[in-house]
């Protein structure tokens, strides 16, 4: 019976219920979008290494990630790595973050200088999915990220400056976009010229022989002078960890504010719904109902408002994420099942917190209130 009374009380003013559900939904949506944005960023961070050759990465000693730090290997590291037993192939790369000035917008992009040669570009650390055009064949040619190109109205055949040198876009790549780390590809020799570092190499992508013991091979590679050797998984994890540290504080702050807003919205609705029914609650007390029943009435109303709001928020977040990714494809928003569960639990927690104030009012209500005139 108590559930029925609670539902009736809540549904008595549908517009108010709708507003409260909207408030909670927006708060939950904000939490989910924030979480989804960060989760998407993490996935995009690993895109290059996941699609490049080999299973190991040799970096400058002390450098344990790709995006967070600049690596510069000793001059003969590549030759020595090739000579190690158990190594099948080595791909040398010269890579560096650069800031592109595109249409007066500062666009961070990660430049990959990879060796030209035969075979697929992906086998040499180049683009793994070409949407249009071809891979570079000369030092003034590049493959540019397709989404970034579309955003800045660039096409195959267009030319623009990178660090004072003009490059022609000869290909557009897919799967290389990200809010922070869109990739573009140039020949390694062009990167050496650009960075005034002839013969320089940032890192080596190492493919072990079939059947080689990867642990032992990593150890042998790490014994080379001035280098560190890591698995690709470790490098991706390190990049992700760095990003977590960067983004966790502001994201937590925003999510915290969103949850507070949600608590206030549910609290406001349940409080007003409760005080408007004070006489009825007083009547229930007068005919012998204990505080337990009244608490239950308040809790059910709070849970229904927050539950519906949470479900609405999850649906809104899914729709908004889709819309954002259509309008701005460089944003990847991934709504992970764990985040959805957390958002729902947050919604229910909002209900419990929000129910505290009206529950207190109900507990202090005198049965005699039923016999007074409504104010």
């Amino acid at each position: 019976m108590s559930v029925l009374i609670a539902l009736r009380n809540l549904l008595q003013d549908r517009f108010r219920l709708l507003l409260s559900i909207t408030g909670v939904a927006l708060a939950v949506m904000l939490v989910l979008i924030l979480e989804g944005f960060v989760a998407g960023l993490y996935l995009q961070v690993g895109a290059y290494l996941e699609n490049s050759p080999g299973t190991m990465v040799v970096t400058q000693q002390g450098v344990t990630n790709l995006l967070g730090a600049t690596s510069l290997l000793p001059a003969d590291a590549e030759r020595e790595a090739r000579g190690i037993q158990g190594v099948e192939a080595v791909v040398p790369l010269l890579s560096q973050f650069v800031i592109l000035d595109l249409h007066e917008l500062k666009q961070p992009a990660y430049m990959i200088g990879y060796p030209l040669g035969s075979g697929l570009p992906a086998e040499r650390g180049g683009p793994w999915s070409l949407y249009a055009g071809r891979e570079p064949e000369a030092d003034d040619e590049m493959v540019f990220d397709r989404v970034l190109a579309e955003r800045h109205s660039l096409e195959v055949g267009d030319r623009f400056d990178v660090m004072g040198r003009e490059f022609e876009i000869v290909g557009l790549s897919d799967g290389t976009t990200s809010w922070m780390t869109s990739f573009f590809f140039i020949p390694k020799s062009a990167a050496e010229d650009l960075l005034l570092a002839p013969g320089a190499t940032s890192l080596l992508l190492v493919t072990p022989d079939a059947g080689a013991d990867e642990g032992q091979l990593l150890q042998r590679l790490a014994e080379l002078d001035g280098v560190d050797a890591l698995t690709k998984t470790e490098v991706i994890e390190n990049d992700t960890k760095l990003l977590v540290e960067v983004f966790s504080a502001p994201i937590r702050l925003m999510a915290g504010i969103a949850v507070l807003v949600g608590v206030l919205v549910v609290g406001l609705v349940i409080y007003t719904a409760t005080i408007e029914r004070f006489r009825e609650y007083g009547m229930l007390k007068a005919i012998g109902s204990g505080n337990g029943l009244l608490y239950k009435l308040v809790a059910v109303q709070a849970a229904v408002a927050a539950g519906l709001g949470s479900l609405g928020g999850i649906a809104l977040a899914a729709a908004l994420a889709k819309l954002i990714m259509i309008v701005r494809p460089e944003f990847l928003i991934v709504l992970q099942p764990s985040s959805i569960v957390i958002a729902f639990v947050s919604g229910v927690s909002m209900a419990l917190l929000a129910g505290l104030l009206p529950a207190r009012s109900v507990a202090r209500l005198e049965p005699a209130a039923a016999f007074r005139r409504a104010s």
Partner: protein
Amino acid sequence: MLRLGYRNLFQSPTRLIVSVGGVALALMLILSLDGILAGSERRMTAYIDNTGADIFVAQSGVRNMHMASSSLPTSVLGDVQSIEGVLDTTPILYLTNVIDVGDQQFLAYIIGVEPEADFGGAWELASGRSTSGAGEIVIDETVAIKAGLGLGDQVDVLGQSFDVVGTAKGTASMINSVAFIGLEDFFRQRGTDETISYLLATVSGEDSPEAVAERIESNVSGVTAMTRGVFSSEEAQIIQDMGSDIVALMNGIGFLIGVAVTGLTIYTATLSRKAEYGMLKALGAKNSHLYITVGWQTVISIGLGLIVALGLTLGLTVIIPLGVPELEMLILPSALVKAATAAGAIALLAAMIPVWQITRVDPAMVFRR
């Protein structure tokens, strides 16, 4: 009518508190995100703003430090020094790397600068001294605190061990910190002393930095020369351009939440006084009179919400750096204007809900039981 609106709103203090609190939080969402970005911009440009150089010379086409790379041949040093109006120059080497302390890693801009240079290094030391020789490093004080490091302790940077001889103030941002080592250590690590990253210059009193920067660009090939102000704003532009989409999204959500919360409050306040509004109508009050009443309630709620939001955000600007020193919040006048505009728009939209209710109030209802 204004008095009636005022009384109606303050009749239930709890409801008013919740309403003002909701609006305040929604506006705080807008203000705090702006504050975080503005604070990040200031931290990000801290080195450029404070290190003492008037002009920054970079590789041609390079207009940033953050996430950027610049390489200049060392011959540029003499070329720039000979330009009229240049008082002094300091070469620096720069790259993004990590400070290794046991299992902990701290992302940092490593800057190699000559120990005896008058500018280009740390501008305020929290403890210790500047580097004076090989194998020495100055790190940010928040990194030192986080890692439990003291003067004389060792850290690994660029694959080499360094002794911490000083800690610097104001060199950490949300993203990373700045660490200073000797230029020679940096050259040794790179295996070449033929290139530098940036050349920093000061100008003599007679010439403006703008004029000298122009002169450098005209007379030295392959370089971009920027005054401190220009270089700093180019750097801040990265944060603005990267953050603009996220800011727009958060502002939009904060705005919607504000509308929902305020609309809900004024709606329930109006609903509970429906009979009184009916009475007013029965006594001859026009709809416009009642609109003023609810409009006034909305304006008061939003106005108070804006004041509380500002107070809460200012509180955050003090509290957050205590817990997270690298995260700075800065409230700029432009953010206040934006929040006030958002508040006005929220008030306008939120007031439409009770207005719609009042239009439907039947004067005859006052005679019903």
